[in-house]
């Protein structure tokens, strides 16, 4: 494994080289697949909700399921995530319910983040899944800092942070990796290189030969892995996590993958992207690839998939129904959580708002991005 070669484990036909296979248990393999499947189904469903005008916005992870599920599976439950917005499989893997996910899309009164953020910007304390931010890259330095804190405290938590190829251009990528390198922070930096940052292709993002090559600038290993191969991603990340936990410092992992959808529900990739490129990646679908491996091991059948898919859909639809039926957060919630305790100014502003009569404004427009 190096910063220029690409590690692949599952071959086209589903075979895996013995010396490379991470040898996960049957149950673990099925759990990974089921998580990837759930993420895909949820993504599809949520985009449909957006198209129907039932939720305001959505960001799919179509095609990147192996990349984030495979990496996340390398952690213990006590380890932490500093995620970006394209890892829906992680909360699912960590047992977050569809209710909690759907509540966030609707920004309703039981949303864990109280309707403060756009859809897909989850916060799940129960899963050590830190609140997602929109500004690109900010989670990267935070993960480095949390890793420094764990070392100071002397605990053995490992931190995994996610960002895209675009994110490598951010200020925080540079500072985050630099700090982690200097302090040997127990962090795995996962760059999901899906080739595009909205409409900007990788070669417009950096002249670096690979993303993994950037690790040298920070004195840490940089590993390039086939991001559509869940076992390869798992294996590389598992090694990085172990290194981190032992105190040997951070790793940059580049998962080479592809954004199969548009950037978001507001974007139309057809305006700037080549159909042929998409087609070629379509052949490398991470679920199909994993299916072939599981089939070879006798762990996958169409029936099993259909049954799982049906169960997921049912659960999900029920959750959506419940989420949709809930009201918006109460007016008072607007003024909560600015600080632990509201200031006199906030209390006054709340009172003023509460004292108003007449209809509330309703001419809020649509989000284009």
């Amino acid at each position: 494994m190096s910063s220029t070669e690409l590690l692949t484990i599952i071959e086209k036909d589903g075979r895996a080289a013995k010396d490379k296979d991470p040898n996960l248990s049957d149950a673990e393999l099925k759990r990974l697949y089921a998580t990837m499947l759930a993420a895909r189904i949820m993504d599809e469903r949520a985009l449909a909700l957006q198209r129907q005008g039932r939720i305001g916005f959505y960001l799919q992870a179509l095609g990147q399921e192996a990349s984030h599920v495979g990496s996340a599976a390398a952690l213990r439950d006590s380890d932490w995530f500093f995620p970006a917005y394209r890892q829906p499989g992680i909360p699912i893997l960590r047992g977050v319910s569809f209710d909690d996910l759907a509540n966030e899309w609707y920004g309703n009164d039981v949303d864990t983040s109280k309707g403060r953020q756009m859809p897909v910007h989850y916060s799940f304390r129960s899963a050590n899944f830190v609140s997602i931010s929109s500004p690109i890259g900010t989670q990267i330095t935070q993960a480095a800092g949390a890793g420094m804190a764990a070392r100071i405290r002397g605990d053995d938590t490992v931190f995994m942070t996610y960002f895209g190829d675009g994110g490598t251009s951010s200020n925080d990528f540079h500072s985050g990796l630099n700090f982690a390198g200097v302090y040997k922070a127990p962090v795995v930096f996962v760059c999901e290189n899906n080739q595009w940052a909205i409409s900007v292709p990788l070669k417009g993002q950096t002249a670096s030969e690979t993303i993994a090559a950037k690790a040298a600038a920070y004195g840490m290993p940089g590993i390039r892995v086939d991001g559509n191969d869940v076992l390869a991603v798992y294996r590389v990340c598992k090694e990085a996590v172990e290194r981190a936990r032992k105190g040997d410092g951070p790793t940059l992992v580049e998962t080479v993958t592809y954004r199969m959808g548009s950037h978001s529900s507001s974007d139309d990739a057809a305006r700037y992207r080549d159909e042929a490129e998409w087609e070629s990646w379509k052949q490398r679908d991470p679920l199909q690839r994993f299916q072939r491996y599981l089939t070879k091991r006798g762990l996958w059948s169409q029936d099993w998939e259909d049954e799982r898919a049906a169960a997921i859909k049912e659960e999900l639809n029920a959750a959506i129904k419940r989420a949709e039926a809930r009201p918006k957060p109460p007016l008072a919630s607007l003024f909560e959580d600015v600080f632990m305790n509201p200031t006199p100014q906030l209390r006054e502003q709340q009172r003023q708002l509460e004292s108003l009569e007449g209809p509330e404004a309703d001419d809020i427009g649509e989000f284009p991005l």
Partner: protein
Amino acid sequence: MAQSTLIEAVTDALRHEMRNDDRVVVFGEDVGKKGGVFGATTGIQEEFGDQRCFDTPLSECGIIGAAVGMAVYGIRPIAEIQFLDFIYPAFDQIVSEAAKMRYRSGGEYTCPMVIRTPYGGGIRGGHYHSQSSEAYFCHTPGLKVVIPSTPADAKGLLISSIRDEDPVMFLEPKRSYRSVKGEVPEGEHVVPLGKGRVVREGTDVTVVAYGAMVPVAEKAAEAMQQQGKSVEIIDPRSLVPLDEELILESVRKTGRCVSVYEAPKTCGFGAEIAAIVAEKAIGHLEGPVVRVAGFDTPFPYALEHLYMPDVRRVVAGIEKTFNW
């Protein structure tokens, strides 16, 4: 004169100046083939090629730092920042470099550049696609801060900004991009920086509003009309330099002043308006100087409609200047 939307007027101004001056270049994230996430640069790369309109890596620090270098070297950069909320990685280049280059070099080096960026709420953008932080820039000597509220002003002010010899923050009210339409003069159309506009004449109270708050103020004025109160609305159009005299004249006439802005109330631009009025028109005031603003909270998603100043809040603010 053609009817156009505010965002079409922006594109029109860009095209006009790029034809007019081949030193002008446009760049930012997704401004090329995609034409920008809101479409403000639609067709620009096609017409002017990818040397004069190009995409950048995802670094606002790089975008603005590069723009400063370009301006110092002598071309005319127009940098698009995708959302004002995402400008902060570039804040150092803006406040420490662009704003101070002329001063710190004794005028040897200058930094004529425009930073265009959509700002403000009203499009369900939530926490990070809705902010109005114009006050940060107004508090930074060396920057001009321009905010249009109509398509004609968008064109005329943007053209002036591009021709200006100093750095200009050109903040575009994204809520108005397509919702506000109007006549826009074709071809050359210049609106000078530093001259406000009387949006509506009135005699009883002055409302100062800019950007997407102008239409809200207008509706509130109509509501007040029905209560028999005559509202004068002033749109300063450029916050820096500010047309203080226009505001003061109006307040001296009406005796009352309300400012309306979307940003958090504390230390927002409305505080500046209030401070000017309380210093220079104190003898004319017949009621409290009122601010109707965003709350001192981060921007919410689900309750956006409660956060943004709306007609009932502006009306309540105006009423307060009469009944106190």
